[in-house]
């Protein structure tokens, strides 16, 4: 599969899911959290295309609402990555030896604390829900990005075009954003797209364990967890949320792979796209 196919397929999957997440609730007459006990655990039918759960809530709108939550978590992770991670990596690469040592030591230390532990401790400090997940992303989620940006920047910082720009009197930040950035944007984009699934995974993981998003709000993790006790009798309650999160991450993975290959000429030669 070449880069273009991968990107197209990824974007197609993502757009379909986004469309589903935002349009399904409009078309459906059900609310994600309203219960109808007469209609509980019904199999997928015309009224409830995904069936209902043990409180008679419509699974279609619940899955759609959970996908929206995942998309939000992912988008937030990308923004945090780009803000903190890129600046941190840039500072380390261009700020001189001492700053580099300090910033990267901090990053290494943050990286060595188990992520789950950070979230769990934060959960106890600020309470269960979305906030600890967000704070954990701010605290440690960007470390990988900082490392990538630093490595990429170090690789290009002695290039002739950087020297040329410096001789012409540009400031370091100007050089970074106007001259280095276009050369290192590929790995950064790929890493951004790849950090989104990690954030989506950890939110779902925590909600699955019951310490993330709290009921009645639906998360893909908690929907799967809710389905487990009755798996033998109502398997569709597992399939739809499980399928949604797998598809969502698949779309992002394909997009990230495609972007990486597209911007990495060495890979393109290997794959026979350009000879």
């Amino acid at each position, binding site marked *: *599969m070449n880069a273009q*196919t*991968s990107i197209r397929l990824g974007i197609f999957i993502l757009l379909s899911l986004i469309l589903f997440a935002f349009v399904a609730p409009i078309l459906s007459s059900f609310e994600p959290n309203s219960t109808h006990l007469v209609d509980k655990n019904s199999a997928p039918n015309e009224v409830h295309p995904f069936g209902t759960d043990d409180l008679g809530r419509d699974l279609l709108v619940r899955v759609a609402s959970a996908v929206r939550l995942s998309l939000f978590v992912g988008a937030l992770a990308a923004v945090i990555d780009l803000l903190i991670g890129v600046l941190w990596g840039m500072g380390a690469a261009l700020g001189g030896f001492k700053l580099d040592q300090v910033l990267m030591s901090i990053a*290494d*230390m943050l990286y*060595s*604390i*188990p992520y*789950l*532990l950070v979230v*769990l*401790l*934060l*959960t*106890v*400090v600020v309470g269960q829900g979305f906030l600890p997940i967000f704070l954990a992303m701010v605290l440690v989620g960007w470390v990988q990005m900082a490392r990538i940006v630093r490595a990429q920047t170090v690789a290009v910082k002695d290039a002739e075009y950087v020297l040329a720009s410096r001789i012409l009197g540009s400031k370091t930040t100007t050089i970074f954003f106007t001259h280095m950035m276009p050369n290192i944007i590929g790995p950064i984009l790929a890493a951004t797209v790849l950090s989104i*699934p990690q954030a989506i*995974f950890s939110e*779902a*993981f925590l909600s*699955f*364990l019951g*310490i993330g998003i709290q009921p009645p709000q639906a998360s893909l*993790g908690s929907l*799967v*967890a809710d*389905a*487990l006790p009755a*798996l*033998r009798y109502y*398997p569709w309650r*597992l399939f739809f949320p*499980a399928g949604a*999160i*797998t*598809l969502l*991450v*698949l779309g*992002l*993975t*394909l997009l990230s*792979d495609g972007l990486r290959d597209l911007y990495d000429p060495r*890979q393109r030669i*290997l*794959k*026979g796209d350009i000879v």
Partner: protein
Amino acid sequence: MITKIVRTLVTVLLALTMTFILMKAIPGDPFQDEQGVPEEVLVNVRKHWGLEDPLIVQYGRFLRSALTLDFGPSLKYQEHTVREIIIQGAPISFRLGVQALILALPLGIFIGAFMAALHGGISSAIATLVSSLGVSMPTFVAAASLQFFLAISIPIFPVARWGDFAHTVLPTLALAIGPAFHISRLMKASLLDVYTQPYIWTARMKGLNEFQVLTKHALKNALLPLLPYIGPMAANILVGSFVVERVFAIPGLGQWFVNSVLNRDYPLIGAMTLLYSIILLVLHILVDAIQKRLDKRLTLQESYLS
């Protein structure tokens, strides 16, 4: 190597210190949920467990317990010591983790080599798609699906609980799927890279067939770039076992880890942090050492630098 170990110890110390600070920043303590107990009694209970001491004294005691690996009794489940809890749960979690790793490594390498051989064409596209799907499935989805298909729909394996080897099959599979496909993707990229090297042409020219080229020359060199990923991956497998333990109702460490934090069970939290940061860092050092041993270029580089 020595500096590496010192650095590791410093990191463990920092992780423990951060855990301590976060634990103490949390309002409340393990006894706040006790119902109908007079305030004076609570104060005495806290005194008994040393929770009224100055923070620096508590910190010293916390570090001492980490050093002696003796955290005393759990504050919430006082009939058990922390050591008992860990000795009871750890072998189960580790067995799952180690089995998953033993399965995932060769499987991933094999699939990766297969995908590299297929390179180009429709079959390769399908293989890429399947491996992308494999890394996109969260562990809990893999676990729940395996449970549904191989234990409920077609009852080959036990649905849940812990017992003989049959009980470990589905949890191990669930844990291994993600890492195996992850390794296969890395392996494929790495192999394709190696195949452009001159020594591969030499090997082909001296008349080796493709299989010999792969096993005698390409594989060894393609495995090297994978090593840095194995350490964090192994750690992830161990942490990922929490979810799998939950799905299959396995009495490992996972339940304790989550409960210890929610109960503010300080000794148990401390022990868990210590355990996990040590595992993580030991894996890092191990992978580093193996890498140096296999790749003489790294040692050479380092001796130039120093």
